[in-house]
């Protein structure tokens, strides 16, 4: 799917640039995009280096295992394939709490660290495991308690009540997260069904199939 989207965007872009006579813009956009990619990655260096250092200290102190033991049961139903007390659980929890608090630049390194831990459990290093997909689903929906950036922007433009969007954002993000978790569960189960060597999956009747197939393609 990612191959299709990538090629599709470039192809459609080419056709539109040809029709609109924007070939110069096309070329400019290629190099702007490439430059942006490098700039963003470089921006990540400082954050990643710092947080991965702090996270190593936490790991060496046994803090992550402790968190995983105490709060693990809360997330273990989302990540049934990750062994109890595995450090991945600690990173997943840190990632989720950073997201909740709207600490984007802390959430990303912790999420990446969680991915790296999940990768150690992965038999096929190039294919995502169900646990990785669940972690990704949680992060794309990114449940947030306080949308701090938006509040700051609204304040800047003289809003009478900058925080008025906190409630609506929370409601929308909760719905999106629920949808992500439900769709993830459904896909995980369908992937299990498709794979013959797996244990006989005990499939409960899935309530009215989610309309996710319409998003395919």
């Amino acid at each position: 799917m990612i191959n299709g989207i990538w090629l599709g965007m470039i192809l459609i872009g080419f056709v539109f640039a040809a029709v609109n006579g924007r070939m110069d813009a096309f070329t400019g956009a290629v190099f702007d995009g490439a430059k942006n990619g490098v700039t963003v990655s470089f921006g990540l260096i400082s954050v990643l280096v710092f947080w991965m250092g702090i996270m190593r200290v936490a790991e060496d102190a046994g803090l992550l295992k402790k968190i995983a033991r105490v709060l693990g049961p809360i997330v273990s139903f989302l990540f049934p394939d990750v062994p109890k007390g595995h450090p991945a659980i600690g990173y997943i929890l840190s990632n989720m709490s950073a997201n909740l608090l709207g600490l984007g630049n802390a959430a990303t390194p912790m999420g990446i660290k969680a991915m790296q831990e999940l990768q150690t459990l992965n038999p096929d290093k190039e294919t995502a495991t169900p646990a990785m997909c669940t972690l990704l689903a949680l992060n794309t929906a990114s449940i947030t308690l306080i949308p701090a950036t938006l509040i700051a922007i609204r304040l800047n433009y003289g809003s009478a009540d900058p925080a008025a969007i906190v409630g609506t954002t929370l409601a929308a993000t909760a719905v999106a997260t629920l949808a992500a978790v439900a769709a993830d569960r459904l896909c995980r189960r369908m992937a299990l069904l498709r794979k013959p060597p797996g244990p006989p999956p005990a499939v409960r009747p899935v309530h009215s199939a989610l309309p996710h197939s319409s998003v395919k393609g």
Partner: protein
Amino acid sequence: MFQLISLISAWAIPVMITFIPLYAFTRKVPVYESFVEGAKDGFGTAIAIIPHLVGMLVAISVFRASGALDFLMSFISPALKGIGVPPEVLPLGLLRPLTGTGSLAYTTDLISVHGPDSLIGMIASTIQGSTDTTLYVLTVYFGAVGIRNGRYALRVGLFSDIVGFIAAIAVCLLVFG
């Protein structure tokens, strides 16, 4: 409640950065050496993301600059107007999963033009705040560990974006409409 959460947000990072090393020190961890050892991984991880991010951002940038995105928006806008949704917010639904900075810029523009407390301003803020940039998250997280086959992850992410977009509009119409 709001004050409490902002207070926790403001304190979270300083508290973590102070108390994680302190706790580790009491457990006889050589804190500085341990920090440097872990921090080494950060650089390599950031560098590993570059090819993924460059590839994805080039495609998105081309798609926008060629006018394809504008065309898609002009195509869908009239349909939304019919059900009482301000068509101005629609492009945000398309931009949000693709580019974080692009959709933030668009939201800021909507807020400055229509006012932060207008219905459009409220909906735009809610959409922007309620989901993350799916393609970016996917590229960075999978890129960092070298996953090439993401299975159904993209489908799930985009599905939740659509649900979140609809939910944001519905909630705002209900509360502020």
